[in-house]
């Protein structure tokens, strides 16, 4: 067909169709990038449910559910359920190890007491652990902790006072011994190691006078080991994080942003404050909670000092910023939800019963392929069976909360639990999609305008074709085929561009957040070259190169200025993790949406081409031929 021949020739020998293809490509790329990021965001929200909480959650806050092991047994008997895990959820205040000195920063945290083994089966906890081993930056500090730790720990009150005075720390000379001793108790173990080491290196006589013989020996070998770089840094930080225990003692695993000393650099790498000094697993923290009794009254605050074992990164910013995980029995102790004996009111030595341990949440993970809603129904049934079973087994004991009576009891899917959060995201995506549909109209309008120009330019060709017998529909076909090819080629390039931008969106974002200097200077040089080129062209006698030169100089100049400005004010952070919950911008192409967008672009290219095509067919061939 001559339409194919003409379309291919028109496409390859003109600049105008290139503009049309570029216009369509830009429209398609725009929609693909925006919708992919939005969909990716929504998917991340949904996936994080499984990552962090499993599929279905039974919750009864504060008071908790007694005999929860029976409930888990009941749930795990369901063919739809893969695993279930108990959890105690509360809030508390965590005393952070920083800053240096006596006044430490407290931080409000969400405490999750979990059974590490069962928790890992329900969630992907194991994959979120941050430190499989000691990070490079922290190795030096960990080595020092190991070498000087035993002595630092064995110091008595007088020794501590002497060392603090000798280390030149704060203004200890004007303090009484009592004040110095108070200060000493506030310092963390790694701080003690610092002071001890300073005094060992700078005032050996003080050390010789202060330390006992056995301590001196240990210090001597520690100094030698440090000098010769001869020490053993084997570690089980991952294992500690998984079991939430170190040497049998419970500890904490904090979200990566709980410690404000951790930050992400522009390459997306986590950095530890003061070159590794503030690596959290070196330290311990004091966790304080206010337990509440069954009727809502507050009890005396409880405090536990626990070592940090590891850190986790779920990718969900509010979680990583506030959650601290620890063994469930510690959380139960902190909240008075642990098993307790019930004693006789008149004779406290007489045990009359046992108050069972409680869990405020049960997380359930479904078997692969089971719909969360179906699972939820089965879990509700299991819960009812559990209530009946417990009431028969313990007629006098505390009753588990019941549906319809204890309104705080909820059995919900993760999506329902977080509907207030997911709902707006879904609405936002629908809104974005609607708004960006306007892009199609823009696409059609651009194709229309460009094709109008092409038809105008090709008027004579149309007359010639008619004179050799081409029909009106034949002429329409030329331009529809042309529109189709422009649409398809444009959509393809749009997909390519959209894919390039989307898959590099984090790199682009980080570049905006911290524009590299070479980019700014490169642009500055390009601006200068463009400017001189324009000046030279000014004497060339033609206007187009000058206009292009001025425009190019202006565009480059504006970009250069913007980049320098961004550099000066510390970059542009669009994807603020505090707003968007996730630390990374989603970067997967939404394939179905991309296909719909591409089809839409082709259809609207055809719509845009239809009007000029019809106009072309209606051109009077006699006039067209006279047109010279």
């Amino acid at each position: 067909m001559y339409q194919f021949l003409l379309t291919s020739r028109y496409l390859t020998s003109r600049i105008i169709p290139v503009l049309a293809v570029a216009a369509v490509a830009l429209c398609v790329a725009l929609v693909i990038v925006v919708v992919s990021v939005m969909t990716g965001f929504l998917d991340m929200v949904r996936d994080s449910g499984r990552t962090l909480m499993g599929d279905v959650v039974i919750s009864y806050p504060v008071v908790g559910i007694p005999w929860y092991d029976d409930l888990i047994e009941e749930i795990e008997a369901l063919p739809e359920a893969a695993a279930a895990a108990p959890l105690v959820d509360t809030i508390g205040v965590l005393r952070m190890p920083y800053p240096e000195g006596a006044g430490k920063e407290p931080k409000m945290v969400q405490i999750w007491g979990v059974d590490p083994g069962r928790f890992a089966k329900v969630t992907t906890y194991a994959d979120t652990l941050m430190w499989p081993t000691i990070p490079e930056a922290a190795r030096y500090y960990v080595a020092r902790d190991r070498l000087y730790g035993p002595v630092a720990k064995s110091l008595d009150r007088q020794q501590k006072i002497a060392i603090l005075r000798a280390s030149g720390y704060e203004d200890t000379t004007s303090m009484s011994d009592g004040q110095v001793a108070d200060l000493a108790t506030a310092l963390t173990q790694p701080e003690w190691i610092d002071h001890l080491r300073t005094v060992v290196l700078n005032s050996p006589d003080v050390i010789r006078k202060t330390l006992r013989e056995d301590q001196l020996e240990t210090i001597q070998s520690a100094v030698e080991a440090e000098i010769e770089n001869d020490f053993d840094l084997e570690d089980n930080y991952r294992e500690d994080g998984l079991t939430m225990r170190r040497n049998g003692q419970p500890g904490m695993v904090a979200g990566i942003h709980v410690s404000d000393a951790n930050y992400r650099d522009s390459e997306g790498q986590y950095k530890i404050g003061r070159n590794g000094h503030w690596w959290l697993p070196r330290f311990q923290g004091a966790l304080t909670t206010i337990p509440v009794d069954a009727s809502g009254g507050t009890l005396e605050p409880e405090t536990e000092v626990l070592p940090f074992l590891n850190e986790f990164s779920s990718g969900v910013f509010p979680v990583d910023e506030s959650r601290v995980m620890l063994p469930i029995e510690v959380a139960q102790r902190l909240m008075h939800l642990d098993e307790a004996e019930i004693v006789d009111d008149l004779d406290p030595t007489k045990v009359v019963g046992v108050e069972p341990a409680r869990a405020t949440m049960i997380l359930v993970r479904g078997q692969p392929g089971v719909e969360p809603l179906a699972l939820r129904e089965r879990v509700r049934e299991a819960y009812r069976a559990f209530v009946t079973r417990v009431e028969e087994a313990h007629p006098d004991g505390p009753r588990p909360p019941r549906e319809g009576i204890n309104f705080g009891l909820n059995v919900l899917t993760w999506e329902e639990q977080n509907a207030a959060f997911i709902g707006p995201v879904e609405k936002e995506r629908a809104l974005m999609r609607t708004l960006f549909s306007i892009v199609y109209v823009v696409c059609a309008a651009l194709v229309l305008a460009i094709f109008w120009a092409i038809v105008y330019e090709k008027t004579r060709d149309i007359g010639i074709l008619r004179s050799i017998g081409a029909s009106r529909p034949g002429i329409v076909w030329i331009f529809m085929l042309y529109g189709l090819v422009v649409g398809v080629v444009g959509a393809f390039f749009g997909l390519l561009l959209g894919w390039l931008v989307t898959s590099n969106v984090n790199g682009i974002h980080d570049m905006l957040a911290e524009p590299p200097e070479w980019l700014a200077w490169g642009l500055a040089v390009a601006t200068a070259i463009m400017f001189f080129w324009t000046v030279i062209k000014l004497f060339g006698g033609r206007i187009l190169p000058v206009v292009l030169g001025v425009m190019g100089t202006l565009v480059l100049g504006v970009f250069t200025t913007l980049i320098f400005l961004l550099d000066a004010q510390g970059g542009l952070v669009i994807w603020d993790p505090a707003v968007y919950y996730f630390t990374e911008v989603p970067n997967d192409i939404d394939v179905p949406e991309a296909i719909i967008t591409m089809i839409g672009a082709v259809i609207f290219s055809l719509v845009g081409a239809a009007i000029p095509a019809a106009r072309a067919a209606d051109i009077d061939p006699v006039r067209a031929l006279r047109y010279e």
Partner: protein
Amino acid sequence: MSESSPLLEARNLYKTYRMGTVDVPVLRGSSIHMEPGEWVAILGASGSGKSTLLHLLGGLDTPDSGEIRFKGELISSHVRGARNRYRNRDVGFVFQFYHLLPELNVLENTLLPGLVGAGIRGDRKRARELLEAFGLDHRLTHRPRELSGGERQRVAIARALLNGPEILLADEPTGNLDAETGQEILDLLKREHEAGLGIMMVTHDRSIAALADRTVVLQQGQVVPDESPVSH
């Protein structure tokens, strides 16, 4: 005049063009006919409506009134498809300004009526033969802008003849060429005419019209026999 109907016959054609708000009558009852294989020259001053008459005869335009018959069939009332076929197969246009498509090469330009009419196949063999006969075989893949005026007009004639029409409608075919090149084109037409091609040629040049079997003059919108002594 013979009893059998002529190859092409136009009767009492009227055509008025609207220029702005003024109606300009171009043809006022023109009648013309040609026999198979005849070469008819239409003489006329510029603006006399020669081109309009040719466009009407070629089915490119429709008259306000009057009728045009090809082999006895009324083409002015043809349905569209039939008229497109008529332009594609039965007649071939040659214009003063060649009217080649700039994006297509010589062979493709020549093939175009074949592609338009027959679809995908297009008669490449015939196109090559024609171009070879016109001395363009070394120019097949050249673009029109790379050719001289004479070469372009030869390509245009090859295109017009591709589908083997019985009538060539030529509108001042040498009007844009120097005398020597124009003569080459006329020689070419003469050869084709001798081979049996009917030619309806519009010109304002009496010496060119002299090559025709018969010359008519278009004046004041009417076709009258040429009164000059030179006749067929």
